[in-house]
């Protein structure tokens, strides 16, 4: 009986402890990785390929998502805004939401699936096939060799990809407004401009920087902690994507509270 009563507490305690443990491990990994940034000779040659992999290769999917988001935003905005609200608010809504929220967050979530999973699977495979150990025995710091270039590439490339996605999303919304909603270009642009603040773009950049770090960081962390062969690689890949998505959404709320 007493055992039955204690069980939920034990479960909560266990969850807390394992959560704290993961947090501590992640902290150790990334603080060591921060130290490893000093080994510039190790990671600089790897940065460009990683930027291509993380950034350039992500452009098509990011633009695809943004295009449809823009279209849907425009259609739904015109559906929702009726009555006395002037139609140019479609432009305002598309612009504001693309820049502030959907551009960075949707891109972040999609790239968590694409980039985070890729990194986690790659590093996970390297871990279980002892390639990470091999790096170490060849006198390479695996953090400088594997983690630093990936995370830096994420931080550098995410904002560029997100800004492109935002532009395309707004353009798609604009096109939709012209073709399907019988709005004029002037109306849409008026709506876009009326509440635009340059700070919005900075906000998007800051958000995407942090999302880039989170997606690549989660990929690296989960990948390097892979255990147990192919199944382990699958597990850590899933974990990387889920973790990255959760942190992105939490960060999204955090930035909105802190910066707006």
């Amino acid at each position: 009986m007493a055992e039955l009563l204690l069980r939920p507490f034990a479960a909560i305690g266990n969850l807390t402890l394992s959560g704290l443990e993961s947090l501590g491990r992640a902290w150790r990994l990334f603080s060591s990785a921060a130290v490893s940034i000093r080994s510039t000779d190790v990671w600089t040659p790897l940065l460009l390929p990683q930027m291509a992999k993380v950034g350039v290769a992500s452009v098509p999917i990011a633009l695809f998502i943004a295009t449809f988001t823009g279209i849907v935003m425009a259609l739904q905005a015109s559906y929702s805004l009726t009555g006395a609200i002037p139609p140019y608010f479609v432009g305002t809504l598309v612009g504001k939401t693309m820049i502030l929220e959907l551009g960075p967050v949707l891109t972040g979530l999609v790239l968590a699936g694409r980039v985070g999973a890729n990194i986690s699977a790659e590093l996970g495979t390297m871990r279980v096939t002892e390639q990470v150990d091999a790096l170490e025995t060849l006198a390479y710091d695996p953090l400088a060799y594997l983690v630093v270039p990936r995370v830096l590439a994420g931080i550098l490339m995410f904002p560029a990809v997100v800004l492109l996605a935002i532009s395309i999303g707004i353009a798609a919304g604009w096109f939709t407004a012209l073709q399907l909603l019988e709005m004029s270009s002037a109306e849409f642009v008026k709506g876009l401009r009326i509440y635009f603040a340059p700070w919005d773009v900075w906000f998007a950049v800051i958000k995407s920087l942090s999302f880039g770090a989170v997606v690549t960081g989660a990929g690296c962390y989960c990948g390097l902690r892979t255990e147990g062969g192919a199944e382990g690689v699958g597990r850590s890949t899933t974990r990387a994507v889920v973790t990255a998505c959760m942190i992105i959404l939490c960060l999204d709320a955090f930035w909105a509270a802190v910066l707006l």
Partner: protein
Amino acid sequence: MSIRLQEVRKSFGPKPVLKGFTLEVRDGETLAIVGPSGSGKSVLLKHVAGLLRPDAGSVLVDTYSVPDLGRKELIQLRRRIGYVFQFAALFDSMTVAENVGMGLRRMPGWDAQRIAARVAECLALVDLNGLGDRYPAQLSGGQRKRAGLARAIAPSPKFLLYDEPTTGLDPVTTTVIDRLILRMSDELGVTGLVVTHDMTSAYRVADRITLLHDGRARFTGTPAEVRAAGDEVLRGFVEGDPDLYFGSGRD
């Protein structure tokens, strides 16, 4: 120039793997550690390379106390240790030549030309001439092992650690690898530590053989001594007799 392990203990979670393992590998000799799969042989090897840190005990390589080394000293030490992984652990994204050259690229004073020359030399040594442009996926198991060996010896290490070098290979390739191991110690004067469960191979390459049993060194001796030993566990393992091996282990 020796490797010395004193009372090394290591547990993974609640499961103890090494329970006070003591061993000395003398300068220039090749020592084989034998034992069944899962007995902690690879774990032992990783302690020597500083990939794992012991819970207790000391690991001395040359004059370095491995667990106490800082990042820089560890890198210094690792340049003197070659590690041959069980499944070669070649980097998939690089060609064989790039793999072999990996360890050299970080060494001061090595330009591309010198690295290329050394890579060719090492590939010739393991009989992989002309395969430098292949990717690991295009190699056979034996070729991969040899490439892994070439990568380990490229920086001219003083110590070579072999993790199951002949596992999964056909008898002929096994002999080829064994000969390579002998060549390393004979021609290059390398101190070798071979982890294996293949007794034939162990007899062939080792100056001395140690049986790792239940987290400790159960028996150490030359191949002749091993053959003559009366220890039941050792005989059980050598003869592949589970009754003998486990029977006495349960006592």
